[in-house]
């Protein structure tokens, strides 16, 4: 027994060593996360000021104060800010944060840093729903509802297929089922494009599939935000278990985690977040893939810190993209085009750098 027991002194010595180490190492991550939060707020203020109708920071603060105290002046700047600029800025942050958080969760879940939130077909399913809505000339709300339902239904179908196939690595079956169902949805989208009215419906379809926030108003933000939050809460609560799950099913189970049930919850939460923002913004690629990577480089792979960093960086990145989309050219540039132009070379650089670690 002598060798096995640690004396009180040894324990407190270890405790001090651990505390010192922890403060040296983990002390940096909260500062990075706080810095990202400050950056995001600054960017939101700047993005609200920039545009075809420029607003000064003073205008913005005065209008916000007026709106809060119920004494809005009704000037044009108020209208621009409250019903156009601010909803769009909030929507961009919401969309980017949701996609990046869902991407971080999926990458841990599938134990693969090259996975994006649409790995299980949520984007193609939502795309099919929206294209069908445009084809049937539904209202904007109808199109968004169909997109949302299409995304959830596709992932549900993939999950059911994954459970029907036994005797195989469950994660691999899910990914392959996602590829197959996603490409089926892609085929259906192509068919609808052929059948659609080329002068009226087709441009709307193409624009939607590339992603845009140009028609976003407050109502969309308020309808998507609670759903994003509903998906985010389980991810926050289960943050530690998501780390354990990323070791693989067998190890996670040996460590006391009900892997199958946890995976279902994480898939449901991340899919809900993705589908609700895709319904608002259309298909915006790259964010869910690239941002978790960047966040991991800054704060490491521990989901406790990866999740807040991904949320903040995703929001900031999408805000940057959307602000560019509405200011660089006379016409609105589709978001998917900009995220790809910036995201693709960046990702190649990440690959070439060959770094898996953080220091």
């Amino acid at each position, binding site marked *: 027994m002598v060798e096995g027991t640690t004396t009180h002194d040894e324990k407190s010595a270890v405790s001090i060593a651990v505390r010192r*180490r922890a403060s040296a190492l983990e002390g940096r991550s909260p500062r990075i996360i706080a810095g990202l939060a400050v950056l995001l707020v600054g960017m939101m203020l700047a993005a609200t000021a920039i545009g075809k109708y420029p607003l000064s920071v003073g205008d913005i603060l005065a209008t916000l104060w007026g709106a809060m105290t119920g004494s809005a002046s009704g000037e044009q700047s108020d209208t621009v800010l409250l019903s156009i600029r601010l909803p769009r800025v909030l929507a961009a942050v919401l969309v980017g944060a949701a996609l990046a958080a869902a991407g971080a969760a999926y990458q841990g879940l599938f134990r693969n840093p090259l996975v994006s939130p649409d790995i299980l077909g949520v984007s193609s399913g939502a795309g099919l729903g929206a294209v069908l809505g445009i084809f049937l000339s539904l209202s904007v709300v109808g199109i968004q509802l169909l997109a949302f339902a299409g995304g959830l239904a596709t992932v549900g179908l993939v999950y059911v297929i994954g459970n029907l196939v036994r005797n195989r690595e469950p994660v691999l079956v899910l990914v392959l089922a996602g590829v197959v169902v996603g490409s089926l949805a892609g085929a259906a989208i192509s068919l609808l494009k052929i059948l659609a009215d080329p002068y009226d419906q087709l441009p709307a379809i193409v624009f939607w599939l590339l992603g845009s926030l140009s028609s976003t108003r407050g109502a969309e933000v308020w309808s998507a935000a609670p759903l994003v939050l509903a998906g985010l809460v389980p991810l926050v609560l289960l943050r530690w278990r998501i780390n354990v799950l990323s070791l693989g099913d067998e190890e996670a189970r*040996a460590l*006391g985690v009900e892997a199958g049930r946890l995976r279902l919850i994480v898939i449901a939460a991340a899919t809900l977040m993705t589908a609700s923002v895709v319904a608002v913004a259309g298909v915006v690629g790259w964010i869910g893939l690239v941002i978790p990577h960047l966040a991991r480089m800054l704060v490491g792979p*521990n989901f406790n810190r990866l999740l807040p960093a991904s949320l903040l960086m995703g929001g900031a990145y999408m805000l940057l993209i959307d602000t560019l989309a509405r200011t660089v050219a006379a016409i609105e540039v589709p978001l998917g085009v900009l995220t790809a132009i910036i995201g693709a070379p960046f990702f190649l650089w990440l690959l070439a750098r060959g770094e898996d670690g*953080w220091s």
Partner: protein
Amino acid sequence: MTTPAPVSPVLSARSLGYGYTGRAIGRNVTLDVAAGEVVCLLGPNGSGKTTLFKTLLGLLPAQEGDVFVDGNPLASLSRQQLARRIAYVPQAHAAQFPYRVLDMVVMGRTAHLGLFAAPAEADRIRAHAALSSLGIAELADQPYTRISGGQRQLALIARALAQDAPVIVMDEPTASLDFGNQVVVLREVKRLAARGLAVVLSTHDPDHAFAIANRVLLLHDGGLIAQGSPHDVLTPSRLRAVYGVDVSIEKLAEGATICTPDYGT
């Protein structure tokens, strides 16, 4: 004292058949592991040592027979209850994400945490103590992906120690270790048993069984062909039957027993 007091086994199997649906690997395995015991499983490549371990841990369903943990049928325990009773050290593997070694070891504390909790200071201290006991405290801040295979194996053992379970199952814990680290691990196994833990491990080296095992299980052709003390089980004729090589087994003056294969002339 003529009869030893009966010790209730912490882990036992009754007529256990293991394998996969439609592909049985072994059957009729009956064993009991008591607290404070080191049980060593030997068997050639492909004899199903890993599959047997996974079945004992409930990671694979038993094809026939039963496993009991602390007298409870395996299926009656939740994953968390099981993880508090049995820790598993898998063969060293590459991780997908560069978790710090300390984070990796703290994951052993998961079964002691609430569903929505993250590890606290006390858990990190426990993990650090586990690293220290294996002499790798200085690796705590290294990314798990950047340390050597042997260091990873030691880190996985530290994780099992941090799990604070009365039974530890180790799948070839010395396989990827250099000579010195093999000794570190075997010493730690002996120390754990002296503290009252039950350790079940597989190995390819009969010398390791002689050095630390109270009991040896010899696995061959889909079943246990012998179990008992190392000297009773690991005879030259059995080792020839199982591995197809001639060996001589000698007891040294210092008390150790070694197994020397015939390398030919």
